[in-house]
């Protein structure tokens, strides 16, 4: 049942589950590393193998994070998590837009107002980001 394997893979991923790369992992690999009800740390044959392959630093860091939180769950539902990611992207776009417009404005009063709005978006971004911090949401 490929559907089940996919589900397992998804649940296993816990904190790192969002990354598209993870979805590319074969169901076989997922079964290798997933054991029901067990938090797994430490040595894993296929992780060892993967780290020997040439990888960019960014990919190595992602791998590390996945290993660190493997088998653990955040106090966020998948749905809440997806909404939050959308909001963060929109807030980022909004603050960039405000900064850009404020710099272009002719009227200093309008520029100041737009900057204030932009800084509000920055605050909102930071408040929402806290819900992704593994230290506070585990």
């Amino acid at each position, binding site marked *: 049942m490929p559907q089940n394997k996919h589900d397992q893979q998804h649940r296993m991923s816990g904190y790192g589950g969002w990354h598209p790369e993870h979805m590319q992992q074969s169901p076989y690999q997922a079964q290798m590393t997933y054991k029901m009800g067990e938090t797994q740390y430490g040595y894993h044959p296929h992780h060892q193998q993967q780290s020997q392959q040439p990888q960019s630093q960014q990919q190595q860091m992602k791998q590390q994070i996945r290993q660190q939180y493997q088998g653990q769950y955040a106090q966020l539902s998948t749905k809440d998590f997806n*909404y939050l990611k959308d*909001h963060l992207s929109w807030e980022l776009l*909004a603050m960039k837009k*405000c900064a850009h417009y404020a710099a272009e404005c*002719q*009227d200093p009063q309008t520029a100041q107002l737009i900057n204030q709005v932009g800084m509000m978006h920055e605050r909102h971004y930071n408040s929402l980001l806290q819900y992704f911090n593994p230290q506070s949401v585990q």
Partner: protein
Amino acid sequence: MQQLPTNTKEHIMMTQQKPGLLPKVKGPEMNDRDRLNDVLATEKYLTHGYNISCYEMSHRELHDTVLRILNETHEAHRVCFEQMFNNGWYKLPQEELSEVALAYQQFQNYQGQFPYPQ
């Protein structure tokens, strides 16, 4: 921040544009009014998203945070609108009093349909 006049008459009278805020000859480039209008549209878009999140979120604390952000975004939208209004960038045509009076009578009659006894 200037306050939006609450008096209806003042509302209608503030359609006069403040001189010097916009270029006399408008070209394809964006001016301050366009920029502020776009920020206003962005705030509208964001409140729409947060409103949906608010009733979809299961996490209680997250819901409260989103509700607070929703309120603040509404506030930012209002402040942008007031700024545009005060600059005379918003025109609000006045409704005819006879139309309003007719609607008053019509909806007063509907009070007879109220399900709760007065």
